[in-house]
């Protein structure tokens, strides 16, 4: 079809039964985020209507099952009492009954076009036409019916719909057939409904475009970067990545025999990081992927990797904390925790990706940083990214480079793993290498790696390790440290997945002649103070945008740049930011009407 899409899944921490929904935004231009308004809502249960009816814009439409019109809020058991109370109050104020009809009346009064369709009748008619009475009871097909109705309504050619069904049910041709029957029937049914003024009939295809899910960037990035060992413990939203690596464990290698990734499910996150470090000591590029609570269990071993100068990459898919928090919802709550993770002073790198495409290339960078500077690298990702489905430019593996730093292939003469060198980085042997014997210990050690409590040697070892932070700032190119989308009188500083909605919000403002700058900080630790300072030299008002309560990047920024943040735009509902709400807050800031803390709330 040629469209660019931005899709996002939302779901409860439950296996099935609770409310899940998927929002997809479609454009002929590159888009990076969702907006508040929904143009067309395809619902196939009552809860969706109760929770989302007011998101549909006045020129939009709602497809719904007409059998549900009399359903009231009490029947929908998955509506929690807090939500119901809020909804009831609202309906009372509008003088409407607590039913589907009641909420739909409100939508209709706003201008929304309603498309009532009896899903039951569709199945009955379909059963009759196909002479297959079994179809009558197949309510599992409601989703295909809903999707097909909506595509019929927006006049999207049906071949992509039918192809998708073939792909999804490629191993079950009979089921594919039944679904295609239902799809065709519903698609054609939509043409008999009232005309919907929005249509998507296709646009010019952009070459080299791929459709990716959230974890594909880091997963495929790890494969390309040569990560050959990944240990993990299941946790939302990080395990999809490990699952993907295991599903693709045998790898094609140019002009060589196949390679492979050993993916090991461990008994807990402590074991995951322990195994990863053990594997990294053999010279294998090794990694794990986790979320906040799992990362918390890893902190002791991160310190071990720090003092022993072991290159490891931890991909941290953040979710909302504290503790279990909102386990399937978004949050950028763990930045300060990542920067400070582990007992004692030791060097590490914390690096943040802004979108899925970026995360592919950043994964390559993270492994290089780990190898070159011989330290743990924490790659910050989050639930917003992991549950997005987007179109982007096809990943280009040859834009990833592989730099193993001072990793040795052979050792001659006496070897000292922690030898003092000019740049603080010692040549690195690996377990099993001829003549490369070394010792590791979580204690302070001498150059061989044997325990040492000598006070003079202690200073030298601490200085050697910690000097790598300065070295990293010196050697990591500016454009990898932070990305400037322009700096103006008002400039945003932000990190991670807020990038997409910020870029879209800025282009909305630009259309109105409002220029706001944006510095996306990628290297969070060590903080690129000099470079960020230079980027902000003409900025007067600094706006920090983050999906957490306390403005964690803002704190790091202030500590390093010695400047206050003027405005915070924060969100901690567990739902991702939309470009609309960032736009609204930025506009208030420019107009001097904003609070110092703008707290965003959109999303069910």
């Amino acid at each position, binding site marked *: 079809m040629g469209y660019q899409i931005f899709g996002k899944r939302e779901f409860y921490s439950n296996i099935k039964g609770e409310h899940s929904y998927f929002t997809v935004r479609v454009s002929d231009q590159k888009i990076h985020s969702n907006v508040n308004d929904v143009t067309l809502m395809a619902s196939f249960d009552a809860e969706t209507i109760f929770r989302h009816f007011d998101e549909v814009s006045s020129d939009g439409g709602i497809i719904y099952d007409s059998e549900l019109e009399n359903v009231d809020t009490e029947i929908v058991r998955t509506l929690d009492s807090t939500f119901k109370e809020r909804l009831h109050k609202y309906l009372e104020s509008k003088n409407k009954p607590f039913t589907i009809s009641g909420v739909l009346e409100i939508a209709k009064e706003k201008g929304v076009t309603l498309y009532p369709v009896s899903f039951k009748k569709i199945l009955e008619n379909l059963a009759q036409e196909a002479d297959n009475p079994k179809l009558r009871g197949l309510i599992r097909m409601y989703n295909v019916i809903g999707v097909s109705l909506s595509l019929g309504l927006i006049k999207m050619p049906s071949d992509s719909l039918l192809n998708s069904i073939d792909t999804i049910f490629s191993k079950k041709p009979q089921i594919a057939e039944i679904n295609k029957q239902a799809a065709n029937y519903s698609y054609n049914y939509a043409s008999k409904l009232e005309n919907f003024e929005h249509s998507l009939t296709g646009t010019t295809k952009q070459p*080299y475009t*791929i459709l*990716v899910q959230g974890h*594909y960037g880091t997963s*495929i990035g790890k*494969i*390309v970067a*040569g990560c*050959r*060992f990944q240990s993990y413990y299941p946790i939302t939203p990080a395990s999809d990545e490990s699952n993907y690596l295991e599903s693709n464990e*045998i*790898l*094609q*290698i*140019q002009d*060589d*025999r*196949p*390679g*492979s990734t*050993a993916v*090991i499910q*461990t*008994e807990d996150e*402590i*074991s*995951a*990081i*322990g*195994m990863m*470090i*053990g*594997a990294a*000591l*053999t010279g*294998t*590029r*090794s990694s794990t992927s986790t979320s906040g609570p799992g990362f918390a269990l890893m902190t002791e*071993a991160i310190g071990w990797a720090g003092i022993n100068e072991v290159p490891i990459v931890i991909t941290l898919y953040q979710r909302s904390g504290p503790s279990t928090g909102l386990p399937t919802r978004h949050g950028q709550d763990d930045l300060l925790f990542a920067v400070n993770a582990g007992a004692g002073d030791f060097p590490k790198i914390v690096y943040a990706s802004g979108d899925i495409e970026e995360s592919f290339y950043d994964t*390559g960078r993270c492994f290089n940083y780990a190898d070159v500077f011989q330290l743990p690298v924490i790659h910050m990702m989050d639930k917003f990214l992991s549950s997005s489905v987007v*179109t982007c430019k*096809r*990943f280009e*593996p*040859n834009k*990833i*480079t*592989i*730099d193993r730093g001072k990793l040795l292939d052979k050792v001659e003469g006496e070897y000292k793993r922690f030898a003092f060198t000019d740049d603080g980085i010692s040549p690195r042997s*690996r*377990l*099993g290498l001829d003549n490369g*014997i*070394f*010792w*590791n*210990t979580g*204690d302070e050690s001498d150059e061989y*790696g044997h*325990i040492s409590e000598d006070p003079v040697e202690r200073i030298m070892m601490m200085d050697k390790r910690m000097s790598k932070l300065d070295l990293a700032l010196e050697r990591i190119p500016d454009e990898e440290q932070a990305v400037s989308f322009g700096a103006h009188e008002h400039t945003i500083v932000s990190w991670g997945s807020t990038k997409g909605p910020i870029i879209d919000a800025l282009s909305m403002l630009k259309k109105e002649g409002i220029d706001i700058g944006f510095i996306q900080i990628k290297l969070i630790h060590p903080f690129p103070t000099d470079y960020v300072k230079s980027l902000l030299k003409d900025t007067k008002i600094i706006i920090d945008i983050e999906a957490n309560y306390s403005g964690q990047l803002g704190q790091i920024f202030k500590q390093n740049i010695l400047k206050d943040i003027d405005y915070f735009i924060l969100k901690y509902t567990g739902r991702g930011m939309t470009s609309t709400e960032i736009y609204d807050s930025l506009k208030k800031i420019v107009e001097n009407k904003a609070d110092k803390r703008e707290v965003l709330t959109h999303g069910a």
Partner: protein
Amino acid sequence: MALKLADYKTDVHNDWCPGCGDFGIVNALQMALAEMGIERDKATIFSGIGCSGKTSHFINTYGVHTLHGRVLTFAQGGKLANPEMTVVAVGGDGDGLGIGAGHFVAAGRRNVDMTYIIFDNGVYGLTKGQASPTLKLGEQTKSLPSPNTNYDVNPIGLAIASGFTFVARGYSYDVKHLKDLIIKAVKHKGLAFLDVLQPCPTYNDINTRDWYAGVDLAQESIERHSRIYKLEDTQFDPLVHYDDEIEVNEKLSQALIKSLEWGTKIPTGVFYQNELISTYTIRLKDKIPNYLENPPAKQKISEDGFPITDVSKILDSLQV
């Protein structure tokens, strides 16, 4: 050039207490490595935290002194990334059966081909003698303010229940026997567990060298009467010969019953051995056919600084 015992020793100063049982274990380990002729750079000793954790520094092979309770995790990761290496993990009973008990059980289920030796002395020596998991309920070693309030873990029983495929016990003052057990454990195909009774002369004043030697029993009867005896001197057959459920269950049960023997007669030697259960590396090989020839640590990942992994098929499948 044949390697001698001295080649496996480092010149690191050993700061264990005089008379410590740990010395016997380190000597036995060095003797076993020398006898098997394992190249120094093809072996890694992983160790936990505590007195026993220092072991890796005294042996002249690769040595990785890890974290408290986590030695098995590091060791398994190293072995799975580089399966050609001989891997021996060591640690105390507090390390392996207290803080690390979860990893102990999980390691048994994996059956990675390596050896795990527990230095079993009933106390946390390096933190000045608190009760550790193998100290019996009600016993009061000399630095305990009151008798131990916890029941003891049965290391042999736990290993058997967790799926270890070689389970044995040694005594640190019978170095030759211990050396033979270590050789058997290292040669075993699968995860081998060796529980080594190791008197702590400073903090465990109950299970002392004299106590194991049965000095107190000798006072009651006339003859000298060591508590320690060897299973191989009895009719006990620990080996599973056939891949047969009835036989396996019998061997597991007899080992478990044997593991409960304590007091005046303490068995050492092999309690259970089963090489018919697949090792973890074989399980990986079933999924990744060339895993053993081309394991993670040996794989080439780049050429002139660029990746050589071809993901074009994956990317083609994502093309829209």
